[in-house]
């Protein structure tokens, strides 16, 4: 873990994600929900008549939140009440540290790795940090000295513990396929392609180099190798994020607003911001693990750089490749964010028992089955290859 010169750049990008993406998310969400509910949404905020398709709303939100009175309920715990939103938000932000949003580039004698910390146990780091966010929500419920808040806190604790199990177990299949927990290694591995029909050749049914075997090539993305794990992991992550349809800790029709019932002003804003950053993190993680990370399908990094250097020279080729890769990464992230919005506004909220059943009786057994199937698959493929 040596600290390189790329850290300022990395940190800058990282700050952009947290501070630009999160406010934008509010706008996206409003627009999306309006679209899906057949109404015109987010069009009131205007400065001198300029509405800018509702893009001013995030600014209005920020002004409102900051200027609102900050209250701590009577009999509540002042210290924890203040700490809770911070504890809930910070983990989401720092978990972006291990997600690579680009590969490795040589330009002007320096090496640029587009990841803040390339840890050997990358995915585990995210799991570990994400599990800390629970404290923020649980403590918020406790510190509010409010029965609804308390119920919300209990629900958060139960939901988090339940879904962490499924989350961890469903990711194991991916670790088995790529043989690593390091997200950059996964990214590099996913640049490869494999021949879908390659097995007929290995089994000796047709000769080597048959044209139709070479024809169908698929990128080695996690989603193609582990389709079941993709959906299980995404579901578990969304449940960890506690947004609709998994928002039973808030459940405003049952327990009013759950753990942040007694929050106002920027403290309340922090909770929301935490959730939105989490949505981005989820999408980033899913992209890195399942959607090939920064890689452009059928176009490995070195091929791209090699192609570009003929026109613009090595340094600029690297820079262009970097820009292309970062753009690809964020495109994938945006698609995933949109997908999550789609789910959020399509599916009604689960009941408490349904959420628990889904976690323990469906996700967990399926994840375990996925591990067994993956193991068998690896064994069989290993046999065929030899």
């Amino acid at each position, binding site marked *: 873990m040596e600290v390189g010169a790329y850290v300022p750049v990395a940190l800058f990008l990282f700050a952009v994600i947290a501070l630009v993406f999160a406010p934008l998310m509010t706008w996206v969400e409003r627009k999306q929900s309006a679209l899906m509910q057949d109404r015109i949404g987010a069009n009131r905020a205007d400065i001198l008549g300029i509405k800018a398709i509702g893009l001013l709303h995030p600014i209005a939100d920020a002004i409102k939140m900051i200027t609102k009175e900050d209250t701590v309920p009577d009999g509540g715990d002042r210290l924890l009440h203040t700490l809770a939103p911070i504890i809930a938000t910070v983990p989401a932000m720092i978990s972006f540290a291990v997600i690579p949003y680009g590969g490795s580039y040589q330009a002007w004698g320096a090496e640029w790795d587009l990841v803040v910390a390339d840890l050997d146990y990358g995915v585990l780091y995210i799991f570990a940090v994400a*599990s800390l966010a629970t404290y923020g929500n*649980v403590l918020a419920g406790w510190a509010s000295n409010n029965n609804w808040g*308390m119920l919300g806190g209990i629900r958060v604790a139960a939901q988090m513990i339940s879904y962490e199990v499924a989350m961890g177990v469903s990711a194991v299949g991916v670790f088995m396929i790529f043989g690593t927990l390091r997200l950059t290694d996964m990214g590099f591995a996913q640049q490869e392609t494999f021949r879908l029909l390659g097995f007929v050749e290995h089994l000796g049914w047709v000769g080597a180099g048959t044209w139709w075997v070479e024809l169908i090539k698929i990128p080695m993305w996690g989603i193609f190798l582990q389709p079941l794990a993709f959906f299980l992991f995404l579901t578990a992550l969304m449940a960890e994020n506690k947004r609709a349809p998994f928002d039973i800790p808030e459940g405003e029709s049952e327990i009013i607003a759950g753990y942040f019932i007694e929050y106002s002003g920027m403290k309340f804003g922090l909770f929301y911001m935490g959730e939105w950053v989490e949505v981005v993190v989820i999408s980033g993680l899913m992209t890195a693990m399942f959607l090939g990370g920064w890689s452009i399908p059928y176009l490995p990094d070195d091929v791209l750089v090699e192609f570009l250097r003929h026109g613009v020279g090595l340094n600029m080729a690297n820079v262009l490749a970097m820009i292309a890769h970062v753009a690809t990464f964020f495109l994938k992230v945006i698609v995933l964010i949109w997908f999550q919005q789609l789910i959020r506004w399509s599916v009604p909220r689960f009941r408490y028992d349904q959420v628990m059943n889904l976690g323990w009786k469906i996700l967990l057994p399926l994840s375990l089955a996925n591990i067994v199937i993956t193991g068998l698959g690896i064994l069989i493929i290993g046999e065929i290859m030899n």
Partner: protein
Amino acid sequence: MTEQVIFYVSAFVALISAAGVVLNVRNTLYAALCLVITMLSLAVLFILLNAEFIGVLQVMVYAGAIVVLFLFVIMLLNIRGGDMGADRQPVLKVIGTLLIVGASVKLVPLLSESRRAWPEVGPEFGTVRAIGGTLYTDYLLAFEIAGVLLLAGIVGAVVMGKQRID
């Protein structure tokens, strides 16, 4: 130098918050939070000792699951303030404290006796791959037993915790 600072700070925080668990008589929830801080500082020490995988596991399991379970139970039972489980037994406290302090005074020189230099370890030491490799070969049986233990724990917790069983 950085290492020294990290060590002393996290060791200090770990010990202080551990003491907080014991001394926090008023509020069980604060004791649980002190426990989390101890766990986290220990995880830092683990990573300092090249046990990266175990360090992350410490955060994941201890801080992320075990202490959350504590919080869950504390909130479920709604133990607020000192209204439940008050601690009044001054004599035992004094005797216990003296005993422990005495033992620590004895223990510290005993443990500091065994000075040995750190050996060089390869970059593989403590990584997920190295631990996994050892775990699934030499310690395979232990791993399997841990699985049975988890199953027994689940069955046991269900038997004890369920409202009604038939």
